[in-house]
């Protein structure tokens, strides 16, 4: 007797499979998320090798905690927070965030030209941001790309909201100087 059943895998099926520790579902989730999450990790830690380590740890955490995803909001958004947390843990271990609190409030006209950013290739922009000093980069990533508020950043990094704003200002200034080269 031969029977052929073809089914398309939905996101929900993959998540359900991962919750049952189905190795194939986990593999599919990995294939689906890893290129984007690798870019996220790279943006935060700034080095390819370190980003691989963070990606590895992030997936281990994701599969261990996937039962905690209740279907509220997008799965990718939920997963992204796990990778960001993994990246922040990595930076903390490396003491890369310890300078965050030492920076005082900083103000001034530091706006960069958005049109320059528009013209830049995403991969190039990614590499530019990866070169940013870790303290600036973390706040910049969280605020400018992920859309965290200064209050959330302050809570996450254990700094003041003013410190978060200062870091962002410095990041913008740094970016302005850097993109002049392009």
């Amino acid at each position, binding site marked *: 007797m031969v029977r052929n059943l073809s089914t398309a895998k939905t996101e929900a099926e993959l998540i359900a499979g991962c919750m049952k520790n189905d190795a194939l579902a986990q593999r599919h989730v990995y294939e689906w998320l*890893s290129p984007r999450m690798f870019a996220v990790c790279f943006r935060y830690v700034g080095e390819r090798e370190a980003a691989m380590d963070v990606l590895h740890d992030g997936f281990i955490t994701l599969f261990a905690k996937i039962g905690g995803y209740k279907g509220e909001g997008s799965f990718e958004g939920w997963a992204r927070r796990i990778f960001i947390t993994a990246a922040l843990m990595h930076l903390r271990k490396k003491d890369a965030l310890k300078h965050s609190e030492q920076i005082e409030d900083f103000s001034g006209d530091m706006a960069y030209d958005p049109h320059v950013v528009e013209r830049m290739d995403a991969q190039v*922009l990614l590499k530019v941001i990866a070169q940013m000093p870790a303290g600036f980069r973390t706040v910049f990533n969280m605020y400018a*790309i992920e859309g965290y508020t200064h209050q959330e950043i302050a809570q996450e990094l254990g700094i003041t909201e003013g410190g978060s704003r200062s870091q962002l200002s410095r990041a913008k200034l740094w970016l302005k100087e850097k993109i002049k080269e392009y």
Partner: protein
Amino acid sequence: MSHNEFHNLREKLYDVQMPVEADLWQDIEATMRRRRMRRMLYYASSVAAVVLLVLLLLLPGGEIGQPQGQTLVAEAVSDKVPSEVAAVVVAEPAAEVAAVAEPSAAADVVAEPAGAMEVSGAEVVPVAELGYTAPVGNTASEEKAASKVNVASEAVASEVGKNAVAEADAQEAVAAQSQTVAPKERRAAMALADDILEFGDERERGNRGYTLAFSQGIMPGSAASVAGSRVMASSAFGGALEHSHMVEQVSDTKYSLPVNAGLQIQFPVGENMAVGVGVNYSMLKSKYDCLIDKVHYNVKQKLHYIGVPVNVYGLVVERNNFSFYVNAGVTLEKGIRAVYELNSYRDSQKYRADIEGVQFSINAGLGVEYKFGNAVGLYFEPNLVYYTNSEVMYSIRTDQPFQVKADIGFRFHF
């Protein structure tokens, strides 16, 4: 400061992708496997610790080490107590050792410590050849042996398990023989007489009858990853593919622990033997990667078998609520269904096929049963299994014809 000024930046970078190194998934999988193993070890250790604790609580003090203790006492006694008393003492634990090791060695083991005894090795051999050790004084050979020793040991051996008067007689007899012996040795001899009588009582308590067993087992020694790729015929997957395809296995085969469950009835054959006949179900799981017409698929294979096992059981020793036994047998299995799941990145296909031919296996092993009262027992039965003609369907039995299986289940005694 507005979020809008970063709008372009966010649009560019939020969904940007970077290629990941190919071997990262293997690292992740290996890490998860290690973590699972650690968890399993943790749970297994916890269960083992609880089981050990329960056993220690259930057993009266000193029972676990009793056989060794008796041997030591026997050696101590044999120096000063008349040899006849020592001979009776030594016979029981020595025969136990012999039954587990090698039957032919039994005579030597027994004869040696009882160097001064009158019992010949030849008379003790049949005890070991039976493949089990009965309590002292319960077999014909032991009674024959006992008849050749002096009055004191005759009193002990012949009256075992018969009536309470024997206990007093035995103790008196042993005491009489031990009058010239130091008090310490005399106490030891008295204790041994008590033990011998106790074994007789236990034997009376034991019930041999029809038993019904439910079991579930795994094969702990068989989960493995077998290296190598192979070109499979277009009739791969049990001929489930409807058209001719080029199929090539491109990864190692990873086998999961085979699982089986069964039901068995045991019929008593003689005093200490039984024959068990039953029916069992087995499932073998494996997975590997293959190229089907150059498209990469992850394949999961499940094979379902129904089998008829026939086993012979021989009681080795029975103490308190524990009984230890040996078993050997054969099983004939018929594959009832093969199921294949072929998965690529975004879709999956499932095939089912019949399994031709039958699977034959032989097995031998040991078992231990703990009885909760007289009706129900919990048993654990590790066995060595050898599978023949498993080439009818490629499975772990093809790669590893020798396997260890461990059945655990409940046995109901009627």
